[in-house]
């Protein structure tokens, strides 16, 4: 299966390939070797086949003319439009993730999408909604190195008809000091090369666990909503968060509840009703993992 998936990548610069990622079929096209290398490294466990259709059409195209040779560039073409400025060509692979984020956040209005890391254990989902640089991806990476299943380090995707969370496992993005912390904790995991993003931050991607990818069609129900905040050198604090405030946090981090109107709001309000809600401040991963083990075992 893996061999077939990899051989299919020869179609990347022609018809393109279809990658099944959670509920989405993504058509990927590129003539750049960086994209092929990226898919080989991080998407080896995903169902990939040839095809020219998909919910999202993501093309990563190289620069033309002198830009092929001098400071080469890569541009994202997402569903036929170029929403971003060209990037340095060495970011062609990772740009696939940024393009997918854009596609999901702007187009997946069948679901309510919230900026959050999401993991599952025992059929119950832990949602970690937070703005960037709050430590949610670090926490997520540490949790999936243990017994938790990765749903996403970027999106909580909720079906407003059922209230269930949908997995959309993809490579986990780690930044700055998180890179060394998670590398030390998970030496067996595949990481990509370190690079600098457009804001100048060091980052790497981490291959999602094969079991999470294999179970990407298994939805689960929400159980815990924890708003994390990394605070260097501070002791772990963990306190109940009133649900009304948790709902404000969720709407604040949602990409699209307003597109869905009443349905979107009611979906989030009901999700909060089903969850135990907490606020977490942490700096020590071992401490917080033990705490979350205790809380989620109840």
């Amino acid at each position, binding site marked *: 299966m893996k061999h077939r998936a990899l051989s299919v990548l020869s179609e990347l610069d022609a018809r393109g390939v279809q990658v099944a990622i959670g509920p989405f079929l993504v058509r990927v096209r590129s003539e750049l070797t960086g994209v092929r290398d990226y898919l080989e490294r991080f998407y080896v466990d995903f169902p990939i086949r040839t095809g020219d259709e998909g919910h999202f059409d993501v093309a990563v195209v190289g620069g033309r003319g002198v830009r092929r040779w001098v400071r080469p560039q890569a541009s994202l073409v997402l569903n036929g439009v170029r929403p971003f400025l060209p990037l340095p060509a060495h970011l062609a692979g990772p740009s696939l993730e940024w393009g997918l984020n854009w596609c999901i956040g702007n187009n997946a209005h069948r679901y309510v999408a919230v900026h959050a890391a999401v993991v599952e254990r025992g059929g119950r989902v832990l949602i970690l909604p937070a703005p960037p640089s709050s430590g949610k991806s670090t926490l997520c990476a540490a949790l999936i190195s243990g017994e938790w299943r990765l749903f996403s380090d970027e999106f909580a995707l909720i079906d407003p008809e059922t209230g269930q969370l949908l997995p959309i496992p993809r490579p986990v993005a780690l930044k700055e000091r998180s890179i060394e912390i998670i590398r030390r904790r998970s030496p067996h995991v595949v990481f990509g090369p370190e690079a600098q993003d457009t804001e100048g931050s060091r980052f790497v991607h981490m291959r999602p666990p094969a079991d999470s990818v294999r179970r990407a069609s298994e939805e689960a129900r929400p159980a815990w909503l924890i708003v994390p905040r990394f605070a260097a050198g501070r002791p772990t604090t963990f306190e109940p968060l009133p649900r*009304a405030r948790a709902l404000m946090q969720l709407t604040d981090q949602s990409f699209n509840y*307003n597109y869905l*109107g009443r349905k979107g*709001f009611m979906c989030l309000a009901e999700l909060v009703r089903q969850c135990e809600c907490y606020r977490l401040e942490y700096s020590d991963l071992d401490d917080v993992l033990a705490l979350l083990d205790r809380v989620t075992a109840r």
Partner: protein
Amino acid sequence: MRGIVGAFGLRGEKPLVTAQPSRWMAARDLIWTCYDDSDEWVVYDPFSADVHLLTASARLLWTVVSDEQPHAIEDLVATLAAALERSPDDELTRFTRETLSSMDRAGLVRPLPS
């Protein structure tokens, strides 16, 4: 009010209405949610798609305003005082005015001409 400011480029100038409105009505079709772990309310306005967090007192004030009758500020203070079992003093009047003003900015109530 925000729409007028944006459309005509009057940002930073004096508001068009400076006098305290004397009568109020509630916005319609709002969606309210509360939970059993606090007395705070979350309200969703489907027209603006905005969400607001309200204290129990603010929600009570909105409820009083929402009976489809225009309400004078003195009536609102008296009704609120009775519900909260306290006197309709200056502090409650100030709270009522400030809360109405906040709810007006959020689009939850609207002032009526006297």
